[in-house]
C-alpha cells in the first residue's frame, strides 16, 4: 500500500467525510513537507511519524469542530453481547468504516487512537485535553455502542 493511501486511510478513520479526510491529509502533507528536513529519516520510525502528523491534524479538525458545535451525542446504553460473530466476519473494511461513522465523533476518536493506532490513555488524554479516566470510560462506551450498532445490523438482516 502506498504511503499516501495508508495516510489517507488514517485520515478517513478520524473524519466524518471524504472531504474532511482530504483536507486533513492535505494539511498534514504540507506540514510533513515543511518539517521533513527536521525529521531523522535514518533512525526514526518514518511511518509512525507520518501517521502521527495525520492524526494530529485530524484531532485539530475535531477540536475545531467540537468548539463550533459542542454537542456530541453520548450513548448510554447497556452492554449487549454480540450474539452473531459471523456478522463480524462478514464485515469488510468499508462496512466497518461505515459502522464507525455512526459512532459519535468523540468516541470514534478515542476508539481509533487506542484500538487502531495504539495510543495509550495518557497520550489520548494529552492530545484531546481530557482526563485519562474519561478516555477509558469513553473507549468502553464506544465499544459498547459499536456492539449495539452491529447487533442492530444483525437484526436488520434477519428482518
Amino acid at each position: 500500500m502506498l504511503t499516501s493511501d495508508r495516510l489517507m486511510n488514517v485520515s478517513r478513520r478520524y473524519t466524518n467525510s471524504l472531504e474532511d479526510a482530504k483536507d486533513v491529509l492535505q494539511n498534514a502533507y504540507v506540514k510533513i513537507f515543511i518539517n521533513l528536513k527536521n525529521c531523522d529519516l535514518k533512525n526514526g520510525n518514518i511511518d509512525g511519524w507520518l501517521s502521527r502528523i495525520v492524526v494530529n491534524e485530524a484531532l485539530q479538525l475535531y477540536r475545531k469542530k467540537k468548539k463550533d458545535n459542542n454537542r456530541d451525542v453520548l450513548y448510554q446504553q447497556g452492554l449487549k453481547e454480540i450474539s452473531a460473530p459471523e456478522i463480524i466476519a462478514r464485515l469488510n473494511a468499508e462496512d466497518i468504516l461505515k459502522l464507525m461513522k455512526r459512532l459519535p465523533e468523540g468516541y470514534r476518536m478515542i476508539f481509533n487512537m487506542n484500538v487502531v493506532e495504539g495510543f495509550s490513555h495518557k497520550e489520548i488524554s494529552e492530545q484531546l485535553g481530557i482526563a485519562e479516566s474519561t478516555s477509558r470510560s469513553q473507549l468502553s462506551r464506544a465499544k459498547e455502542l459499536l456492539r449495539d450498532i452491529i447487533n442492530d445490523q444483525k437484526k436488520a438482516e434477519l428482518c
Partner: protein
Amino acid sequence: MLKDNLDKYIKENLENARVDWDKNAMWDDIEKQLPAKEKDRKGLLYLIGLLFLLMSVAICFFAINGNVDNEPAVAFMQNEGPLDKNTTELNDANAHIFSRPIIDEKSPQTDSDDVAKVKDTNTNTNTNTTTNTNTYANSSADLKINTIGKVKVDDLERKSNYGSEKKSIQITEEHTIALPVINPSELITIDSAVLDSKVVSIDQVSNAISLIERLESISNIGFKKLLISNRDLPNIRSEQSMIEISKAPNKGLQLGVYSGIGIADRTLQSQSNDDLLELRDQNETVLEVIRGGLTLRKKISHNFSIGAGIEYQRINERLDYIESSQTTVTVTSDSAYVANTASGSLQYFSGKVDGVVTSSQRFIRYNAHHNISMPLHVGYYTSLAPKIEVSAYAGPVINLYQGYEGYNINLDGYIVETDAIRSGSILSAFDAGLSLDYGMSSCIDISIGAFYRRALSAFSIDSNIDQSYDNLNLQVGILYNFY
C-alpha cells in the same frame, strides 16, 4: 474473547482499508499551499562578502608592503627664491637644483652597485648653465627640505623589478629627477617628488632607478642637456614650480569590471488607491541589491575624471501575503440531525445548512526588479598614499531597461503574476560615491567603494502604485589602465 476479537478484527480491517480518492488533485493543492522555496541567497552573500574581505586584505597587504620603509630619506629640496633662467651661474641656494649626480663615464662599472652606479660628484656640469660648487649634502643645510620617504637601495632594486612590470622613463620637461647620493652604502636621495601630495610612489622611485641606469648609457653632455632643458622651461619662477611638475602619473583611460551588494529603501506612492498601497507596504519587503557592471573612466586634467558604464542591478523582494476569500454555501445533509426514536433506534433527519466558507492561503513569493542602466560620472581624484588614490564622483544614471519578475497583490486583494511594468523616465537615478583605488601594478588597480543612488523616477507594476528605490551600495572592482 469476543471483545478482543472485535478489536483485533476492526483494527486489521481498518488498517487495510482502501479509500478511493483523487490523489493528483490533492498533490496540486498541496503544491499551492507549500511555501515557495526560499532562494538560497546565503551562498551568494557569503561569496560577495568573502570577495570584499579578500580585496580589503589584499589592499592592506600591498599598501603596507609598499611602504615598508617610511623613514625619511627621499628628500625634496625647495627653494623659495626666484630662479632666473637667464642666469648662467646659480647661487648656492639654487645650485642644488641643478646639482645632479654626474655619471662617471670613464668607469661607471667601478661604482657601488648599491647606489646604482651614481656618483656623488660635485662637478661643474655645464659651463653654460650652472656652476655648482657645493655637494648636495652640504647645500641641503641651507635649504628647506621636505622629507618625504626613505627607501633603501636594496628595496629600490627589488622593487624596480617588481612583478613583471616594465618600467620606462620618459624624461620630459615635466620631470626633474636628480639622484645625489648622500650615503652611497645606504641611501639614495631623490629630490624630485610629488610636491602637492608629499609622497613619492614606488613607481617614481623605480623610475628614478631606471633613470640612473639610463643615464649610465648617456654622456655627461646628454645629461646636462637634460638639465638645461629643465632649467630652460618657461615660466619657471622658483624651484618649487620646477619640482611641482612631478605629479602623480595620470593613468589616462581605465576600463573596469565591478560588482557589489547594497540595501535599498523602497518608496511607494499611490496614484489612486491608498488601501492597496498600505497592503503592499505591509506585505512586501525589500531584501537586497546586487549589481555588477563595466565602467570606462578617463582621467582628465586637474585631477578630474569622467566615466560611463553599463550596469545590471537586481533588487530582491519578498512578498508574504495571506489571501482570503469568503463564499456562502448551502449544504444539504442527510445526517444533520440524529435522534433516538421511542423504539431505541437511531433516526436521521436531513437538514439544510447555510454557511459562509472562509478560506485563506498564504503566499510567500520572491520577486526581483531587474534594471540595466548607464551610470555617467564626473569625479575628482587625488593621491592618498603611495599607490592609493581616493576619488569622489557623482552623476546621473540613464535607464536602459527595467523589468519586474514575480507576483503582486491586485486591487481585489488577490495574488497575481506581475505584468509588464510601466517604466518611468529615462533618467532614473543620481549617484554619489567614494572609491579607493590601489595600484596593484602599472596596469591593474583594485577599487573598493561605496555610493548612494537616489531615485529620480518611479515605475509601476500594477498601474496603481508607483515605486522607486534609493539604495546604498558597497562594491569592489578591478580596473585596467590604458596609458
